[in-house]
């Protein structure tokens, strides 16, 4: 029961990481570079939600604004920077994304200051489900995350644009000769990646605090989950985020709290030794 409680504690953290990893892996799979601005897009989402929540008092409105705002931000970053650099080496794109991350962070710092801010959401006592203490707010956040994930997977697997996105991710050249327009696919992908980041950022902001650095500081676990899940695999990213979050918490009775982060990387290493392509990754031929 004790371990089950630890696992539950890890789930919410895992969902935040999983959402970030999903955004990262979408970009990785389709635009083929690691987008280091993912964390800062999350922060942008958190600040948008916070501002709208303060002004309107509605968390639902805040989350809609956050998803919309971050999606537009991601698209603008694509149109102004990444599109121009398409075809360059991965390193140029990575460095450009680090630069965009810096700009977002600095902009938020100037606009909102570096002092921490919090979502004023009512505090509630946990409810007991089968002996497990579960916080109603966590339950709500988890629901939001699951809905967001369901929406993304529905787009990916049930719509024509999703099919095209997966086709581009599988084989860009083949997709192009089949008449898929990369421009549309890219636009859709960046909008989705931005929106998903915003949900993760908002959850993180509600759970913790909002400051210009919160998203940036999540980047390392997000990268770990992306790699563990298999680069480019949306399902893998989410599952890996949850695995890492739960593994961290369940390990704490054995390794203590200071080493739980290291432990998640041990899990990562162990999986990659046995399965170098990650949990859900596919073996790709050299292009």
């Amino acid at each position, binding site marked *: 029961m004790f371990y089950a*409680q*630890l696992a539950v*504690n*890890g789930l*919410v*953290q895992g969902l*935040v990481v999983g959402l970030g990893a999903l955004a990262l892996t979408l970009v990785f799979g389709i635009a083929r570079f690691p987008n280091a601005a993912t964390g800062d897009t999350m922060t942008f989402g958190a600040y948008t939600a916070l501002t709208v929540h303060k002004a309107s008092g509605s968390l639902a409105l805040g989350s809609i604004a956050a998803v919309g705002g971050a999606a537009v931000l991601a698209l603008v970053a694509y149109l102004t920077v990444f599109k121009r650099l398409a075809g360059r080496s991965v390193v140029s794109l990575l460095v450009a994304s680090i630069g965009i991350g810096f700009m977002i962070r600095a902009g938020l710092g100037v606009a909102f200051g*570096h*002092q*921490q*801010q*919090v979502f*004023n959401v009512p*505090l*509630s*006592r*946990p409810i007991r489900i089968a002996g497990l*203490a579960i*916080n109603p707010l966590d339950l709500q956040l988890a629901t939001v995350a699951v809905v967001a994930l369901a929406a993304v997977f529905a787009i990916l697997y049930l719509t024509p644009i999703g099919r095209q996105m997966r086709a581009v991710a599988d084989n860009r050249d083949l997709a192009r000769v089949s008449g898929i327009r990369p421009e549309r696919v890219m636009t859709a992908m960046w909008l989705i990646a931005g929106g998903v980041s915003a949900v993760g950022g908002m959850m*993180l902001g509600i*759970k*913790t*605090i909002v*400051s210009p650095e*919160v998203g940036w*500081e*999540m980047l390392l676990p997000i990268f770990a989950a992306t790699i563990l899940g298999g680069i480019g695999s949306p399902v893998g990213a989410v599952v890996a985020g949850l695995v890492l979050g739960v593994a961290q*918490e369940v390990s*704490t009775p054995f390794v*203590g*709290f*200071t080493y*739980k*982060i290291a432990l998640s990387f041990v899990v990562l290493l162990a999986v990659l030794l046995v399965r170098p392509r990650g949990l859900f990754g596919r073996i790709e031929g050299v292009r």
Partner: protein
Amino acid sequence: MKTTRREFLGSVAAGAALVAAPSIVRAQGADAIRIGALCPVTGVGGPYGSGMQKMIVAAAEAVNAAGGAGGRKIEIVAEDTQTNPQAAVLAAKKLIEVNKVQAILGTWSSGVSLAVIPLTNDAGIPLMHCSGAPALSVPPANAKGLGFRFQATNDRFGRAFAEICEKEGFKRPATMAFNNASGIGNTEGFTKAWKAKGGEVVESVVYEPNQASYRSELMKVLAANPDVIVTGSYIADTTIILREWFQTGQPVKWIIPGWAANPQLVEALGAEVTEGIISVDSVSNEGAEAFKAYDAAYQKAMGQAGTNNVYAAMTWDMMTVLALAIEAAGTSDMAAVVAKLREVGNPDGKQVSSFAEGKEALKAGKINYEGASSVLDFDQHGDVTPDFGAYFIEGGKLNRRYVVKI
């Protein structure tokens, strides 16, 4: 508009003259001793920084009004650390290399002081700071003995926590520390002092920064059924931990350092969650004559009581005690001045509470400056031992109930 070469040269010459002008003006006061006031005017330290800087200037004015130190006037060059180590290093470089200051006063936050002290060490000039990290007491940071701390060390904060724990009758304390030198310094200082009193610590947890949740950490601490949790923490993690603790519904008291349990924390969490938290911060030497002088200067400069800014009292003392040491050394050669700092600050001399008084008394013999921030006795590490205030958060307000001496 076209610029001819002649116009261009003319403007360059004018610009050069402008740049050179301050040094021409300064040349008249060539014998002034230049001191850097490097305070957190912006950033997290912003609420304190501008008062700190103004008190360095005010104390220097008091020194100059009394005829200067060692026969020379003091000139203050002010810079902002932005409470950011990178910005602080740039500013310190400028103060040392361009302004040729003889000392840097007023750095705040351990990260900033740890970043600046290698520069002052290389320049062979003292750094007087208000930071808590124990690492600032010993080599490598303080290898040359040029660092002087006017704030309590984290270890002393821990001792104050233990005093308050005893006074409040707590029997089963647990600790939670942010995993860095300052956080662990607080709780280890507490544990050491508490065990020396014969008490036991029922549980202790060191946690990592930037976690989305601290529920597992809290589960472990709360499972030991503590009656109080003592933290070495910062405001961000404290906010998350207290919120999650409140949601568990398990009653427990908290003792938290003043930089984490402040009005901002109350604002973030509301009065209900923070009710009864004991916030511990160092307090000024409020009964002292020197404090009255500082208080008057602070009211004049900031329009507020001097008790609002413990760090400004520290910077007031920095300037005063440095000027006294210069006076005692009779030179602005910093090696000689630093050697005199303990002599003018520590006991076994006539007690004085201002520069003017000290300057007079130095003619007769040894002095002991009793400061506005503390009695200002430096130990072998250049650290002082201020008093501590126990502030109880009641109805969303921090009320000081008593002062603890360690």
